[in-house]
Every structure is written in C-alpha cells, then in structure tokens.
C-alpha cells in the first residue's frame, strides 16, 4: 500500500530523514514510533504530500507522490484522511458543518452531504451532537468529529499524527477502539505516529521505530516486543525516564476521591512505569503514587514515600493541573507489594 525507498529529507542543516525504507501493507494498523524529533511526523506528512522530500521514492496506493502536480495532489488527497493531535476543527462552525466541509469543497450535492454526514457521525458514535459546536466538547468528542471529517471522502488510508497524545488514558483507549473498528470494518489502512507505549501496544498491528532518520526496528508488534531490539529499549527507556522525571516532581497526596487515584495508577501503568499503590489513612480514603526506589521503610515499620506534587501529562494540561498535597506516612497493606 505504502512503499518508501531511501527517503532523504532535510530542513536546512537538520537531516531529519536519512535514507528511510518502509513498507506498509494494505489493511494494516502501522505505528511509527520514535523520540520527539525523530522524523515520524515528517515522514507521515510526506505520505500525503504536506511535506516534500529531497531524495528517494514514495509510492502510495500505486501513485508516486513526487509526480503529482498541484491539482493532481488535491485529488490524490481525497484518498487519504488525516487526524491531528489538536483536532483542528473550525471553532465557529457546528459539527455538521465541520464534517461537511471536505464534501462542500469537493462540490457534492446537499442531499449526498446530509446523508454522508449523518452516516459518519453514527460510525464515530456521536450522532446526537450533530448541530452542536465542538467548542464545548471534550477532547475525545472533538477527535471523533475530526475522524468523521477525515472519513468523508471514503479514503483507503488514514493518517494519525499523535492523535491521542492530548487525551487522557480512558478516552485514548476509546478512540483507539474506534480506530480499530474502522480498520476492521472498512478495511482502511491506518498509519499512526506516536511516542506513547500504550498506543503501540493497544492499537498498532505493526510498528517501525525511527532512530537517526532511519528505521531501526520494524515488524509485527508482538515480535518486536518479544525480541526487544535496542531501538525498542531506547524508546521505552526514554519514555520511562521522562515519566520518572515528571513523577519525581509529583507529590504524595491523599486524594479525597479515589477516582483520581485510579487514574494515576492507570496512567502510570500504561506509561510502563511501575508504581505501587497503597492504602493510607483509613479516615481519608485515597491513593498515593510512589516512585520506585523512593519508597523506604521508616523506623516504625511504615512504608513512606517522599512528598511530591503530581502533574497531568495530558496535552494542554501539562503542568497546569495538580492537587494540593502533603506528606503522609503510609501503612503498607501488603509489605511485599513493592
């Protein structure tokens, strides 16, 4: 479906892609993983021509991308849908007009547009929101609208550029399920750019890891995780280190509502960082996040964790959402939970 050979791309002095080879089969859900700046978004955008490349060949669904003139490129893009990290919806229009936009640009008739929009909103699961404005929506709902818009022209390929990076884990999972559904029922080839382990594990069938502008490891997700190539370890290590650094700055807290605690534990779990959750003060139910290695046994035999303030890692809330916390000793429910 998509074949890349020797793709070279530089932005001025920065050599982002250095001879990249790739093969994505029809019907696959293919992940492009790597650290920030590895070139995964750039490569993704080469597929639908939003970005050009200097050397190499890129054949998408039988078409050599480089040979397309301006008008041909526009028509070519009908076959490729794309969704983005920040959704990219028009704030002043309602859901209907947002989803109808590509159809209107391509001059479809009003009745066709109406039927198609309603159809797509059913598929993405928000038919009742048709006349509302996405302005008020949650991230997950906005992304659903964006997915509906991306599917209007019945594309064979769907490109996802960090599509779940701005969503919380539960919503991410819901969107990933939707994408899997779209892949299996409509046979659309999905290419996913991500830096999140949870997405690689939860969504992708195959994966390629970009390092230094080339594919360092690739194959079916199960195989890659089993073989544990160095590239994967680098990626996970990078992921963990980043998360640990953030959690190190997070506070021990007693949270009055356990839902938040569950969220922390699930977030940590899907990020691949080990955390221990322990019960605490019986009068105030809550959970605690402890960073491995930071938990020690004090003189009274309690397990205690260093006090740290938690920050949300989701998209735009980065650094801005935290609970007031205070240090507290925790009684281990089960000492060997560590």
């Amino acid at each position, binding site marked *: 479906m998509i074949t890349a050979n020797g793709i070279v791309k530089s932005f001025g002095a920065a050599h982002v892609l250095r001879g990249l080879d790739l093969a994505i089969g029809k019907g696959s859900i293919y992940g492009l993983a790597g650290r920030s700046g590895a070139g995964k978004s750039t490569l993704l955008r080469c597929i*639908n021509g*939003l970005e050009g490349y200097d050397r190499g060949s890129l054949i998408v669904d039988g078409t050599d991308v480089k040979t397309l003139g301006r008008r041909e*490129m*526009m*028509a*070519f*893009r*009908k076959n*490729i*849908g*794309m969704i*983005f990290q*920040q959704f*990219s919806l*028009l*704030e*002043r*229009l309602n859901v209907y007009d947002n989803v109808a*936009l*590509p159809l*209107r*640009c*391509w001059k479809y008739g009003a009745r066709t547009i109406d039927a198609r929009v309603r159809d797509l909103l059913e598929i993405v699961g928000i038919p009742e929101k048709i006349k509302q404005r996405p302005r008020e929506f949650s991230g997950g709902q906005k992304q659903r609208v*964006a997915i509906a*818009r*991306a599917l*209007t*022209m019945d594309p064979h390929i769907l*490109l996802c550029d960090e599509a779940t990076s701005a969503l919380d884990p539960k919503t991410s999972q819901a969107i990933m399920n939707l994408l899997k559904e779209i892949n299996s029922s409509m046979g659309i080839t999905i290419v996913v750019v991500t830096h999140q382990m949870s997405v690689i594990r939860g969504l992708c069938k195959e994966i390629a890891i970009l390092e230094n502008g080339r594919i360092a490891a690739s194959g079916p997700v199960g195989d890659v995780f089993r073989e544990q190539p160095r590239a994967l370890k680098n990626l996970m290590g990078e992921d963990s280190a980043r998360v640990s650094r953030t959690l190190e700055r997070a506070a021990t807290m007693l949270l009055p509502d356990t839902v938040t605690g569950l969220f922390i534990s699930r977030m940590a779990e899907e990020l691949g960082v080990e955390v221990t959750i322990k019960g605490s003060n019986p009068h105030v139910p809550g959970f605690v996040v402890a960073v491995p290695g930071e938990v020690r046994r004090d003189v009274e035999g309690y397990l205690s964790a260093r006090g740290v303030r938690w920050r949300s890692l989701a998209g735009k809330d980065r650094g801005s959402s935290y609970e007031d916390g205070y240090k507290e000793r925790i009684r281990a429910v089960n000492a060997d939970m560590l």
Partner: protein
Amino acid sequence: MTSSGYMAHWWRYFEGIIAPSIWATLRMLSVSMVLSLILGFILAYFLILYGPQGLRPNNTRYKFLDFIVNSIRSFPIIILIVAISPLTRMIVGTSIGEKAAIFPLTIAATPFMARIIENSLKGVDRQLIEAARSFGASDFQIIMKVMVKESVPMIVAGTTLSTITFLSATTLAGAVGAGGIGAVALNYGYQSFNNTVLYTSVFILFIMVLVIQWVGDWLYKRML
C-alpha cells in the same frame, strides 16, 4: 432671547445645516467603508496567498503589494486628499464635494482594511490550514471557507475600528470642500464663532461613535 425662541433658533440651524450634513457624512462613510472592505479584502487575499508564511509564498509579489499598502498608509489623510486631487478630478469629474471625497477616502481606507483583514486571517491556527490541505482543499477554498470563516469576529472588530477612524477622516474631508458634519463644525461653528452649531455637531459626532461601537460590539458577539 427667550427659551422657546432659542429652541426655534436652534432647530432652524439643525434642520437647515446640521441634519443634511449628518446624512452627507453617513453617505461618505458608508460608501467608502463598503468599497474599502471589498477592495481591502481582495488585497488581503493576495497578501495572505503570497506572504512568507502564506499558502503560496512569492516574495516578489508580496513585497510589491506590501510596498503599496505601506506607502498609501504613510500619507496623512488630508495630504492624501490634496495630493491625489488631480486623479480625483479625472475619475469623479470634480475635486470638491461629497463624491470627490469618497474617492480619496476609499484609497486611504483600503490598505488599512487590507492590513486588518490580513492580520485577522493570519491569526488562524496553521494546523487548521494543514487539515484543510489534507482533504484536498484548494488555496481559494482554504482562504474563503476556513480562514475567513474563522476570523469573521476579528474582521468585524477591525472594521468597527476602521469605521470610527474614518469617521474622523470624513470630518477632515470637510476641510477640502466635502461637506459633512466636520465641515459644518468647522465652517459654521468654529470659524463663524457659533458655539451652538459647533457643540451640537461635536455632540452628534460623539453619538455616532458610540452607535458605531455599540453596533460593532453587538455584531462581534453574534459572530463569535
């Protein structure tokens, strides 16, 4: 003069001189604003298209348009009116009066509006433009259906600002024979030592500004 005598006196001035001039000002203002909005939009379209972060960057064309916009804007309005009066005479047939004032007013307002519209369009999130590209929208469609649609409130706010600014420009036009309430304030009021006319005109201008601002704000909120 008795109170009722004063009122009758005032009314005569109002009916005879001030009221017609209000209409003259409104005509000059509305025609020049509408024309400059249309022409300014066309100019802004090409500025956005060819700009350095535009849809189809073309440095030569952009610099040329940019130069025209900056040059016209650098003229104080009254100098502009005087400087292009031969051109005005050629196109409109005269360089005095209401119709003759609309021409230089439009010329002055067009680049002003162009900049306002250009800045409003530039304020649209680049990702939106990418998203529109990704489903094959043409440059024209991106500008009209995405950028313009998203920046309507800003354009409304800019137009309100521009209208109030050019209201004062129309009063200046009065100084070169255009008529309108500025001319009345100046000629019949100030230069004739008639405070009644002067202050009534000033007050009317004040009300006009309030009304324009009020309408603009209302429209802005509606468009959000």
